[in-house]
Structures are given as structure tokens and as C-alpha cells.
């Protein structure tokens, strides 16, 4: 009986009237041929990441460059002693904040406009954006550290630590907020968190100078490890959250 139903269904679905326009397929093939030579050859994730760069808001790049220029000017004009390298601590959360706003936008709106016409999943789109933003942040951070190192005669390992740790703590915190609060307020929360970290970092230079003694480097390393683990777990969580496809594909 079941096989009979299946057979009847196949027969029913096969019996469709002929196409009204027999030339339909030919015209589509002509259309396909007309685009010959336009098709790009590259198709790797690297190529996708490259194409994603132009979708990043121009403000992100402008703010990064402005921040870098202002920092360079400030350091060159005012830095008089070796303690000046501590300016790096309050500035790094701001570097992360600039990129986070872009990532937050992609995550919050689920990048529907990207996923529908492409065949990339939201997970891939977000991963590409994360790579771009992290690369941009690392570049800015490196520039900041080079500028600081040129002016302040500080041990390079301490400089890296004071640059990377606040950056990583900020990134971890921002991702933590975005994973738990996926609404229009998340951007304000991440901004508040980053600015608060920046303020605490700035205040700590004068209020708690003991934090920056050589003996405290062990604590900084511990914080670095914890933040790195936290950052990794939050990135994984964010990508897992994005694994599901768009709901609109399932509407009927």
C-alpha cells in the first residue's frame, strides 16, 4: 500500500504541462555565456576575508587612524619620562571598542543582507569580520607600542604586556556582553565597559603604581592567560550561536 502511494505520488508530480516558452532554457544559457570572463577564480576563505574588508564601516578605519595620530602627537609632545609608557594601558580598551562596535552590528542584525545573496553562513561572515577586526586592532596596538617604545625607554616585554593584557581583557568582556545581551543596548554596554576599563587603567597609573612594578608581572601574565582562555571560549560561543541559518529560509 505504502509503495503504491509513493508510486502514485511520483506519477502525479511528474505530470506537469510543458513549458509555455520552449526557448526559456536557451535564453538562460545565453545569459550565462554573456558573463564569461567575469567569474573570479579565487574562492578561498582568504578571498572572502579580503572581500569583507570593504563592508567594514569606514568610520572604524578613520577612528583607528585618528586615535593613532592623536596618541603619537600626545606622546611626542608631552612624554618626558620613562613612566610615560603607562599611557598605553588606558588607550588599548578604546582600540578594542572601535572594532567591537562593528562586530556588534554584524552579530545583532545577524547580517541577513550578507547571508541571503551569498551562500556563506553567518558563522563564516562573522568569522571573517572577527579576523579583520582583530588584525586591525593588532596593527594599531603594534603601532602604539612602537611609538611608545621610541619615546619611553621601557623594557619591551613589559610594554607588550601592558599593551596586550588590557586589550585582551576588553575584548573578552565585550564578547561576553554581546553573547549574553544580543539587543540594541549591547553596544552601549560594551562602550561603558571599555570606557570604564580605560578610566580604571588611567587612574591605576597614579593610584596604584604597585601594579606596574616588575614584581607584579606574574599577575599580569596570569591575567593574560585567563583573558586569553576567556576570549577563546567567547569566540567559540559566538560562532556556535551563529551556526543556525536564517529563519526566513524556513518560512512558508
Amino acid at each position, binding site marked *: 500500500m505504502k509503495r503504491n502511494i509513493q508510486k502514485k505520488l511520483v506519477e502525479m*508530480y511528474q505530470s506537469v504541462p510543458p513549458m509555455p516558452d520552449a526557448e526559456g532554457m536557451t535564453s538562460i544559457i545565453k545569459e550565462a*555565456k554573456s558573463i564569461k570572463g567575469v567569474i573570479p577564480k579565487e574562492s578561498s576563505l582568504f578571498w572572502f576575508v579580503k572581500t569583507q574588508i570593504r563592508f567594514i564601516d569606514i568610520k572604524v578605519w578613520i577612528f583607528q587612524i585618528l586615535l593613532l595620530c592623536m596618541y603619537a602627537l600626545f606622546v611626542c609632545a608631552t612624554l618626558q619620562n620613562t613612566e610615560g609608557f603607562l599611557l598605553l594601558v588606558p588607550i588599548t580598551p578604546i582600540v578594542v571598542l572601535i572594532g567591537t562596535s562593528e562586530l556588534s552590528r554584524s552579530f545583532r542584525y545577524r547580517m541577513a543582507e550578507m547571508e541571503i545573496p551569498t*551562500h556563506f553562513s553567518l558563522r563564516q561572515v562573522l568569522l571573517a569580520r572577527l579576523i579583520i577586526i582583530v588584525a586591525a586592532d593588532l596593527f594599531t596596538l603594534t603601532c602604539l607600542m612602537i611609538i611608545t617604545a621610541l619615546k619611553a625607554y621601557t623594557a619591551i616585554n613589559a610594554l607588550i604586556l601592558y599593551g596586550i593584557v588590557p586589550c585582551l581583557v576588553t575584548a573578552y568582556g565585550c564578547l561576553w556582553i554581546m553573547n549574553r545581551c544580543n539587543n540594541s543596548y549591547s553596544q552601549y554596554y560594551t562602550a561603558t565597559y571599555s570606557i570604564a576599563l580605560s578610566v580604571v587603567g588611567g587612574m591605576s597609573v597614579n593610584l596604584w603604581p604597585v601594579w606596574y612594578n616588575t614584581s607584579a608581572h606574574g599577575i599580569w601574565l596570569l591575567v593574560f592567560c585567563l583573558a586569553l582562555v576567556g576570549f577563546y571560549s567567547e569566540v567559540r560561543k559566538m560562532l556556535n550561536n551563529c551556526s543556525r541559518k536564517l529563519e526566513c529560509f524556513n518560512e512558508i
Partner: protein
Amino acid sequence: MADKINQSECETDDMEEIIREYYDDIYKYCYWKIKNSTDAQDITQETFLRFIQNFVNYVDMGKPKALLYTIARNLCINWKRKPSYIPLENIENDSSFIISNELDTVIDKMYLHDAVSSLPLSQQEVLLLRYGQDLRVGEIATILNISRFTVMYRLKCAINKLNKMKIGED
């Protein structure tokens, strides 16, 4: 032809091959979703146009079959949302199509069509993709973005309901 489009397949000749292979299937799928041959062909054309455009801008990734059906399905949904769309209740109003078939077969098919139409839309969808398009359960799951288990469950429910309506009896 393999489902996977890789870099070397991103050539126009391959696209032509894809069009030749799937054009009829997509037309049949659209016809059963829209129940009008002219509109079905328009949607089929639009499906392949969009496929070609996406092929130019976004290469790689995947399964042309699933992508084609997803585009066609979304276009059919959009088509139905248009205020001018009037659903046709009968299997086909094209008289030339009916005359070309035996009367018994036509009546049988109309009865079957009514029975299928009485099923929930989600079950009709999986029946069309499974028996109308001969797609595998995994492929249907990808197109509808549901689990394989859900596809099998819906298929089983649909067949059982048709069974209760005594569709399988000769």
C-alpha cells in the same frame, strides 16, 4: 555531476551544464508550488538568473542543487505573497494537458491531488521534494533548514495520512 562546486568548476561551461541538468526539475518544482505553468516558468527563469548573478559574485561553497531549490522556494513564497496571486484549487486548468491524458488517470490524479492538498503545507513540501524532485532526505533537510529526523517524520506522517484516505488502493 558532483554536487560540490569547486574552483575549477566555476566556468561558464559548467554553469551551462548545471542549467541543463536542473532546469526541468526546477520548473516542475515551481509548477507544483504555483500551480500555473506560465508563472512557474517565469520563476524558473528568475531562479537561474539569480543563480548566475550569485555565481559571479560569490563563488565556491557548495551545493548548486540546494542553492537552486532554496532560491526557487523563496521566489515562490514571494510570488504567493503578491496581492495579485490567486491560488488555483484544481490540479490544472490547461485543457490541452487534461485531454492528453486518459480520463481515469486524470480523475485518479485529481483525487490524489486533493488528498495531498489537504495535508499541512510543511508535509506537502517534503512530499514534493522527495517524490516530485527525487531528492534525498539530507538534501531536503538542507533546503528546508530542518533536521533529517524532521524530514523523515513529516514524510511518515504524510504517507500515513494518505494511507488513511485510502489513496494507495487500486
